[in-house]
């Protein structure tokens, strides 16, 4: 070579960003790899550009992204910084893409402590998922950053995330799930849980956040005010007020991340459903009467009723234990989903069973914990239904 490029920059008054190249950068491609992929993509032929041109363009853009990265860590700054003139819709794109993550990656770290120790495992995760280490780091750091920021904030989790990171509603909800899982350290990594996707867990997290956290109580108060919802809610509300005399909005609202301890305590009361033999039999007969003729697996339901009921109630009763909270999902799979699956229940069967199982308990004369029961079973039912697939 007679000459070499010593320096090569392009700066536009409006910052030029190619979404495709941005994605390569986010995915942790090296400049050379990105150039290779772009060449295969055929941009070159359209513009009669040489490899040099692509290389120059890619390097420029990678550099721009790198300079923007600092701002992306606090997205609110992006709109108020002076260095780059970026139209608002491009800013939105930059942020949304930066905080997007790979499902394969998030499954690996979901429920793990977002600490340095885990960061060392990123090498392994990278090797396992085929996601570049650089991209793994970015995603991990995003999780950690969001976690750290919202940890200290009051107010509803999803809204806080949206406000501070300017994410779309969907992505903010996903981050809420990640934060929630990381905070409660739910076990998601066991082999038996591998069939579950991040979206399954995210759904469950959403259910837990909106029903089982202390913040949920506040929200329900809001809901009640807004919509005059059912008696259950009002009851729940009353109950909550009794238990937390001072816990009106401001105290309650920073509790989105933690499960409502009082509620978990109350769950112990549900044990009566399995410990009281009469009640158990009564419950079973009510359910079976209702289910008869409605499903092909009726016999299996009838045969397994007590086992399944015990399983669900025991899970509830143990939730005061942090360790058992962590095992919530593995317990649900091992003790409920797997037995049903081995009996070849369909999703519809499960739904039918859980619906009647939940509703029948309310009609039991001697059962006095309807509110707690509903609060528990509403969530468990929707979680199981979400998780009940291959």
């Amino acid at each position, binding site marked *: *070579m*007679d*000459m*070499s*490029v*010593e*320096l*090569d*920059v*392009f*700066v*536009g*008054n*409006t910052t*030029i960003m*190619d*979404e*495709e190249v941005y*994605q390569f950068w986010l995915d942790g491609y090296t400049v050379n790899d990105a150039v290779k*992929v772009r060449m295969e*993509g*055929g*941009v070159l032929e*359209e*513009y*009669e*550009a*040489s490899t*040099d*041109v*692509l290389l120059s*363009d890619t*390097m*420029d853009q990678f*550099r*721009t992204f*790198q*300079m923007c990265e600092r701002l992306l860590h606090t997205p609110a*700054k992006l*709109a*108020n*910084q*002076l*260095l780059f*003139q970026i139209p*608002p819709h491009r*800013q*939105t794109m930059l942020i*949304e893409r930066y905080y*997007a*993550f*790979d499902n*394969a990656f998030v499954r690996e770290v979901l429920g793990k402590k977002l600490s340095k120790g885990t960061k060392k495992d990123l090498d392994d995760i990278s090797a396992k998922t085929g996601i570049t280490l650089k991209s793994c780091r970015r995603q991990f750091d995003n999780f950690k950053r969001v976690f750290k920021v919202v940890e200290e904030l009051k107010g509803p989790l999803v809204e806080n995330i*949206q406000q501070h990171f*300017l994410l*779309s*509603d*969907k*992505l903010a909800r996903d981050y809420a799930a990640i934060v929630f899982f990381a905070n409660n350290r739910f076990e998601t990594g066991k082999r038996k849980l591998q069939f579950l996707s*991040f979206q399954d867990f995210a759904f469950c997290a959403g259910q837990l956040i909106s029903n089982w956290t202390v913040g949920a109580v506040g929200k329900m108060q809001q809901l009640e005010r807004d919509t005059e919802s059912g008696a259950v809610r009002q009851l729940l509300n009353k109950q909550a007020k009794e238990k937390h005399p001072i816990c009106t909005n401001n105290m309650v609202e920073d509790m989105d991340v933690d499960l409502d301890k009082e509620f978990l305590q109350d769950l112990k009361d549900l044990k009566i459903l399995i410990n009281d033999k009469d009640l158990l039999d009564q419950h079973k007969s009510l359910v079976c009467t209702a289910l008869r003729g409605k499903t092909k697996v009726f016999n299996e339901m009838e045969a397994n009723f007590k086992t399944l009921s015990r399983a669900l109630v025991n899970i509830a009763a143990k939730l005061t234990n942090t360790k058992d909270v962590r095992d919530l999902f593995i317990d649900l799979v091992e003790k409920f989903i797997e037995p049903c699956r081995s009996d070849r229940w369909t999703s519809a069967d499960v739904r039918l069973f859980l619906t009647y199982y939940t509703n029948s308990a309310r009609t039991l004369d001697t059962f006095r914990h309807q509110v707690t029961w509903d609060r528990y079973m509403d969530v468990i039912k929707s979680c199981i239904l979400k998780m009940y697939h291959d």
Partner: protein
Amino acid sequence: MPGKLKAKIVAGRHLPVMDRASDLTDAFVEVKFGNTTFKTDVCPKSLNPQWNSEWFKFEVDDEDLQDEPLQITVLDHDTYSANDAIGKVYIDIDPLLSCEAATVISGWFPIYDTIHGIRGEINVLVKVDLFNDLNRFRQSSCGVKFFCTTSIPKCYRVVMVHGFVEELVVNEDPEYQWIDRIRTPRASNEARQRLISLMSGELQRKIGLKVLEMGGNAVLGYLQCFDLEGESGLVVRAIGTACTLDKLSSLPTAVLPACNSPSREMKEPPFSEDPNPNIHSSGPSTPLKNQTYSFSPSKSYSRQSSSSDTDLSLTPKTAAGAASWRVGPRVSLCPSFPALSSEPLSIPNTFYLPLRPRAGHGSATPPPPPPPVSAQSNSTMLRKSVSFSEDLLLAAFGMGSGGSAGKDGGPLKTLLRQQTQSALEQREFPFFTLTCFPPGFLIHVGGVVSARSVKLLDRIHNPDEPETRDAWWEEIRQEIKSHAKALGCHAVVGYSESTSICEEVCILSASGTAAILNPKFMQEGCLDSYSEHRLEDPAPPSCGFCHIPYDELNMPFPAHLTYCYNCRRQKVPDVLFTTIDLPVEATVMGKGSLIQARLCRLKKKAQGEVNATAISNLLPFMEYELHTQLMNKLKLRSMNALFGLRVQISVGENMLVGLASATGVYLMALPAPGGIQIAGKTPSDITYEQHISNMQKKINDTISKNKDLYEVHPQEIIEEVIGSPIPESRQRSRLFRSHSESSDEVSELDLSHGKKDAFVLEIDDTDAVEDIHSLLTDAPMPSGFYSCNTEIMPGIYNWTSSLQMFTSVRVFRLNNVNLTNQGLNKIFNDLCENLLKSLYFKLRSMVPCCLCHLNFAVAVPEEELIQVAVTAVAMTFDKEQAQENFKANMEKAIMKVISENEEQLQFPLELCTETPAPQPFSPSKGTGHQDGGGIHTSARASQEKGSPLPEGRSRSLRCMRPFPSSTVSVVKMTPLSFLPGTRIIKYLGIINMFFIRETTSLREEGGVSGFLHCFIAEVFAMVRAHVAALGGNAVVSYSMKECVFMENPNKNQAQCLINVSGDAVIFVRESEAEATAAAPQTSSMQNLSGAAEANA
């Protein structure tokens, strides 16, 4: 005490963490003006401090207000040790000194540190109370408005153009003072930034004083430059055009055309002037009131000679053998005629001899036949020619003065010419830095005049007496003036000056376009109000500026002359080179094209005089070769005129780099260019013949491709061609088209290159091989792209408002020590081509688009390094609409031309039918568009397909929350003087900023590219912030004057200096209603004569 400056520090944000322990900062602010400093309270432990300070008041002279910047320093308070500086903001308060510009400066400014770059932002409020000062001997020039714009600013009208103003100030460069050895790089950089800021302020004030002296109130085309002369000092110099401007405050829209599109605003500038020179002569020629203003005494000739001992033997009288009349180490007149390269050398030997005929001669004499066409090779012969001594040369030029009078006959014209001449000749330098003129301002254009001079730098001993530098420029300007005279012109327009410095050698260059101007613009009292004139005035001929100003019997250089192809009444040259923008009245066919000539020449390393002499000797060769290249490339595009020509020659330790850029167009008034013919010298060898015919074919193919690309399809005009020395071995495609030429109904059109006087390249000559090589290696532009280095692109009218200004810098390292000139040339050529390719690729999403005002700056920062910096704006245009409007306006325009011309023109029929005929109104345009569109969409598709988004990631982006509103307002930047689709309603003042950035952690900042990328982005950010704080939303006429980059990778260090300037403005979008009303006019063809527009 004529002024009170008030500043208030409101708040800071995004400050850096200065205290590692707390992760916070205890910030306070020092506000300094002159020798007075105020401090705010410390705002403890905050990265977003709220100071909300009182108003700090400075009572100062207005002289200081002009010179000094307001200096704001943000510091971190430290109880135990010295306070750490976070960074600084310099605010130029000049815009507040003019009542018509900004009234308050208020906004967020980036806090800048020369080592760390931007570190947070600070919100500041600044106001000035000025008291009237009637002191006649005042030193300040408050209120004089400065514009970088080289045309008449959009919301003003010109009452009078006073002329050239210049000034320079010198100082020692702080970087080279002894103290620099002991102070930190930061202190050194800040001293330098501050000094330059002071010097620019002083310079501007001094220029302002001159303007006031002349009776003006504004400077247009203000061009300020720095010469970093190293050990010998720092020079800040500026030139401009003094004018008296009147603000158009509440003009009815019917009279004042909205500046909604370049084409229209150019055509109807808010000029109060009668554009027709013909009817003017009745007005008394009031001598200029300010003609006798004196420049500083240092400029007298006696000084010049006294200072000449410093420039040593740089002007040896025995000029080294060089090409024709441009010879002389210091002189290089580049009169822009093909004759330069295509004529045999015998002509220059005789052309000075005949005496100029006196007035009246020219008009009566029938035109002589054009000189016989030479099919001879040129370059080799030129080398052998004996050149004139400089003295003879200058003497010869001197004879030209006044010789052109009466050439176009008619006593009125003669009178007019005399008036103008007398008005202008009494000025020391009848130069104008403007490049864009109202119709009628330019009467004739002679061609490019340029001069270069090589000087040895010497330490500036007394900064208060910068005579040496003044004398150098004085000398050059005198040369330019005499060159203009030789071309029969009394004025120079599109004038600019530049330098290139390497160690102790400095090349000073000046260039411009010799022209004859309408004197009315230079006189007071004969101007009536703007509106009255427009309706009455017949239009000037659109081709007038093409007509030769010099005497055809006594031409200063050999050229082919023909009768004007537009009016058929006067002579025009076959090629015209200029440094100005395309005049609005010009009739152009097709589109324009950026044309560049590139050249590197090796030079032995040397010191002092030897070095200077070596450079002097190389310069004429370089100019000649650049000129040849330009000419070849122009012919390759079938064009016949260059606008915006800018020739840079940069000097390095072991090489000279030349880059000439211009925009080529096909002027309807000029003859169609011939093709390019390749001839071999030794026709014996068959393979050789083959080789030649291959090359010829390639060239012919390129020419015909270019004709389609630029929509240039000139008609063959047979009757004037004398001889056709080139055998017709090319393919001919026939196309029938009606035109009125010689009352033929139908004539044959040759779509291949013209058959007359083809340009001959002989390839035995190594230079010619190089030429051909560089001709054929110019890659065609990707479809959908056009480029030019002028303000507007001929042939494109419907700009959308989407634009992207950018700066791109590349530095190349030459690795091979044993490079030949040819090898070096190829490298440099590739470098420029690749850079252009990269730009096209980067901006591909904007097609159809034109890169306008492409400005290349080359430098040789170190041995083996070549630096190219490009600033330009990419603007999209609407092809579809352009065509429709074109059609719609065609008839209208024709009607106008007919009605207006019948009274005044002898050949009304010819004119009205001829004008539209050559328009690229052919189906080729339509198909071209479709092609472009097709490629565009398919490209998009491939982009989409090419982005491999993994499944899980393609999240819907639709359900977005709205963003919290940003506090940052959008500021547009453009090197042009306008923003398409908008109207500039206020000029807020000039932006002239100088920054230094240094790093001692180059690797950590991403290497040289990372460092510079960040710095340029920071410079943009600071410009935008200043404009926004003035209340503006755009910078027009933006340019990066200087980008000096130095690196030392071994020490992990780099330093860069950038100087940018422009005009801060407020623009408003054309309202929807106005847009529709204006639409027909907007797109009206530029290539129809200005007549159509003047009365529109």
